[in-house]
């Protein structure tokens, strides 16, 4: 066996009453993987995200991060094991400066968020590191401004900066370009190209251009089941995928 997968999902099942929203889903992300999870509306993509992050409890199946099971952990404990996410709708500390939005995450990662005393230097280090994360994504300007004052495209990148500041093994990007005006979209695209190479990334996205450009493997989800998986080229050529998905929404 080589090094354990960054994220490994086996036989994940979830039903709401008679409605099976996830059926026997398997996923494997090696360190540094770039995987896209696509599917038509109602395919269960959001359910998968919620199962992975711990917002929902699966009926069956297992989830491991770097070989360690996380199924029984609460969402915040999963984050501490290396599973970070961004949200479909920006979820930032609106009144807090962009820099502190990131620094608070670093403080949490470094376990100094319980500190009431003698924090000065370490908090200063958090702020410095926050600036570095913002710079990597090219959004270091206006870092003193409250997050809510930033344009929406930059807010989306700030979400990613916060997630990266947690130094995750696995990063879930939940529609990173959702709601971003077309003119700003290229900024997101470029930033995504600069994400750390060793982080395994699962992207859930409607924007097909973005998915095909960014990922190396695509998993197609239909009615809670994995319909097929393969490289972007294979998926684009797959008649079944076209029938259920591309044919309708790309027409």
């Amino acid at each position, binding site marked *: 066996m080589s090094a354990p997968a960054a994220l490994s999902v086996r036989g994940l099942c979830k039903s709401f009453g008679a409605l099976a929203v996830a059926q026997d889903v398997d996923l494997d992300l090696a360190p540094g993987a770039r995987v896209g999870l696509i599917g038509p509306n109602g395919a269960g993509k959001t359910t998968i995200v919620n199962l992975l992050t711990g917002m929902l409890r699966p009926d069956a199946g297992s989830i491991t991060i770097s070989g360690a099971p996380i199924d029984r952990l609460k969402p*915040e404990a999963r984050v501490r094991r290396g599973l970070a996410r961004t949200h479909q709708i920006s979820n930032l*500390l609106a009144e807090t400066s962009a820099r502190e939005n990131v*620094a608070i995450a670093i403080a*949490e*990662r470094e376990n100094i968020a319980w500190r*009431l*005393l003698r924090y000065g230097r370490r*908090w200063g280090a958090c702020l410095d590191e926050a600036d570095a994360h913002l710079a990597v994504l090219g959004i270091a300007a206006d870092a003193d401004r409250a997050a809510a004052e930033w344009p929406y495209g930059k807010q989306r990148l700030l979400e990613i900066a916060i997630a990266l500041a947690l130094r995750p093994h696995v990063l879930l990007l939940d529609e990173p370009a959702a709601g971003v005006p077309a003119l700003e979209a290229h900024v997101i695209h470029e930033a995504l190209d600069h994400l750390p190479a060793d982080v395994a990334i699962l992207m859930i996205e409607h924007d097909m251009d973005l998915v095909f450009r960014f990922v190396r493997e695509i998993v197609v989800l239909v009615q809670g089941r994995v319909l097929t998986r393969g490289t972007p080229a294979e998926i684009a050529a797959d008649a079944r995928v076209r029938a259920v998905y591309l044919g309708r929404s790309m027409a």
Partner: protein
Amino acid sequence: MAGARLGALWHVVPWVTALVVYYTAGGYLSLGTNVLIMILLTLSLDLVLGHAGIVTLGHAAYFGFGAYAAGNFAVHVHNGSLAGLLFAGALTGVFGLLTGALILHTEGVTLMMLTLAIASLVAEFANHAHFLTGGDDGLQGIRMAPLLGLFRFDLYGHTAYLYSLGVLCAWFVATWRIVRSPFGRSLDGIRQSPRRMRAIGTPVWRRLVAVYGLSAAMAGSAGALSAQTTRYASLSALSILVSGTAVVTLALGGTRRLYGAFLGATVYGVVQSFAAEIDPFRWMLVVGLMLMGVVLFAEKGLMSLVDLGRNALVGAFRRAARR
């Protein structure tokens, strides 16, 4: 940063004012002590409600708990005031942790109802537990030893005032540090978005319970001061009126400002006292009108007016310096 160092000068204003009051208040010194105690209670509320966003209408439970704890400690164990204060503060803190752990899974209106429920339960328990509280008659027979063995609690309330001021100052410094610490910043984050904080791995519930316990200890200290300085603890310390007044004084002064508690409690205490002297039946009207005025014209409390004045002053200085 000369600006930051100069900014620290503003800290002098409230504390020097408190000392000026000490020398000039004369017969009103006990009112001053009451105001200091009210400030401490309001400050404890600013920590949970202002900074952590825990909507509570039940802080009287901890104020009263602290008062009875200090009273009983003085009557049955030891009548040193600092020992009593520490005992009452710590015990109330533990009580706050326990009750907080029960209710802080919830938020919003549900949480508010639960804080009310806890305050009601504590008040009802105190009403029946005569052996601890003296029931309707209140807890009497508190005799405090001289502070530090040196300063008697005199009839005019000099010792009581300075003692309360010292305790307030200690808690203020602690709170000032706490809200700027990584812990305090995470509370600020939880107030704004618990979901965001969970997404960066914050154990939200545990952190809220921690600050709730801390705030309860502070409210309990205020209650202990009240019992020690008046040598009396009564059921009124547990009444919903105390919780409500603290929320009002906080809103009046301005939330998340710390000194807002000072301003709000002082203005409320003084206006209430003088209005009640002039008209013991309709003083509430004056307080109500004042509140409406603040809500309408200074939404962020009286501290926003202080900011205006301060900025004008700093601006005038700058212009004068340039000339």
